[in-house]
């Protein structure tokens, strides 16, 4: 069943033990609630017997924990995650800035860092967008979101930008790079609803003390309801004060 449920049953799964560990943790993370051994084996594309052994080891070492219906992420990951330096540094520098931006806009505020082709939220304050759940640790696509474009416009690593823009066709790539150029000039990126239907967002980059971009801060609200002209200077100011707090820290 697990084999059939996968859209690419013939594609080879991860082979090294380490890659299989990464794959299993990723499958459990992206799953809404407990997942069974065969569910993990199918999603991670590893043999069921291997999955069973690996899950047993991961449970023994507290990376996973048993619950009725399967396994979920375990407390060891919570402990390790709480000690991750960059998220902790940025989130604590951002707290007063996020609070003020939320007070002044009444909209959803997010602070994001880049990971692979996604942005991951470090802090999130809900605004008036009830249809989208929001919490720290959530992923959004870097290609289309305001925070992703704000990050990419200032990213020195061309490999990152290339990887994110890889799915685009030739003329789309050109338009994308043009947009990044104007984001660099404005220090503000906008998403009019490309990432999530009905959700508009404005974001500015966050720079650390070494001068490189580390993430973005964003304001999101209902498309058509978000007052972009009002919000844009506030986001820009927030990004400058967050950058200043990070540089001073």
């Amino acid at each position, binding site marked *: 069943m697990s084999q059939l449920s996968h859209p690419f049953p013939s594609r080879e799964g991860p082979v*090294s*033990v*380490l890659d299989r*560990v*990464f794959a299993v*943790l990723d499958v459990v*993370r992206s799953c809404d*609630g407990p997942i069974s051994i065969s569910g993990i084996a199918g999603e991670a594309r590893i043999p069921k017997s291997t999955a069973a052994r690996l899950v047993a*080891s*991961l449970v023994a*070492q*507290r990376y996973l924990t048993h619950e009725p219906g399967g396994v*979920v*992420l*375990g*407390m060891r*990951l*919570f*402990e*390790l*995650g*709480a*000690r*991750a*330096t*960059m*998220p*902790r*540094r940025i989130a604590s520098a951002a707290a007063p800035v996020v609070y003020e931006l939320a007070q002044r806009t009444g909209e959803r505020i997010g602070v994001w*860092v880049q*990971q*692979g082709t996604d942005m*991951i939220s*470090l802090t999130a304050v809900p605004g008036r967008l009830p249809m989208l759940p929001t*919490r*720290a*640790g959530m*992923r959004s696509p870097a290609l289309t979101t305001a925070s992703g474009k704000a990050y990419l416009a200032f990213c020195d690593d061309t490999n990152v930008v290339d990887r994110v823009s890889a799915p685009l066709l030739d003329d789309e790539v050109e338009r994308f790079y043009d947009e990044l150029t104007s984001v660099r000039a404005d220090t503000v990126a906008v998403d009019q609803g490309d990432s999530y239907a009905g959700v508009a967002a404005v974001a500015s980059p966050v720079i650390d003390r070494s001068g490189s971009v580390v993430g973005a801060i964003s304001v999101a609200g209902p498309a058509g309801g978000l007052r972009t002209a009002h919000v844009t200077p506030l986001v820009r100011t927030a990004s400058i004060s967050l950058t200043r707090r990070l540089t001073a820290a």
Partner: protein
Amino acid sequence: MRTAAWTESVSVLDRLSAVLDAFGEDSAGLTITEIARRANLPKSTVSRLAADLVDQGYLDREGARLHLGVRLFELGQGVERPRRLRELARHGMVQLRDATGCHVQLAVADGDDVIVIASAHGHGSHPPVARMGERLLLGSAALDSALEALRHGAAGAEIPSAFEHTRGGQVCVASPVLERRRAVASLSANGSSSSIDADAIAPLVRRTAAALSRALAS
């Protein structure tokens, strides 16, 4: 001691854990050499493993120093039990902090350890307390109170009891958070014993814990 045979006998997962556990609370990061020493692994092994971990975002590189990475943050935020408790507890914890001036903590048991999952920092000067994701220290007022609260949670009372301990000038009042009559967390107020009247704050701690228990049930 660190022979090739010894290294081979240690599984990949054990090596991964040894490397990740090498990172303590200090945020200055570690070099490959420092990780190798702390993890008791050959430098070449750590170097290879670290390269894979940086690729996957489990470690972040900052010059020559490595840090626990964004992927671990993401996985940590995905752990359901603390996340749900934190979300429900946040408001009440801040209120309790404002009403008492105490440092307010929420902690859960994991095996023999008690791990802090949320905290609202007190306004006054306090002795150092465990941060989010840290374990409560052996021999601390916070651990003794939390263990008692977690053990006696299911006494059957409508409003959970409060448990108080004083150690080394620090006082802690803890009350269990109940789910289906089982203690799933300990909510506590902490402060210096010279400035905190434990009897006065105990009813507030109990009431906050009771409110959180009700929120869990709904």
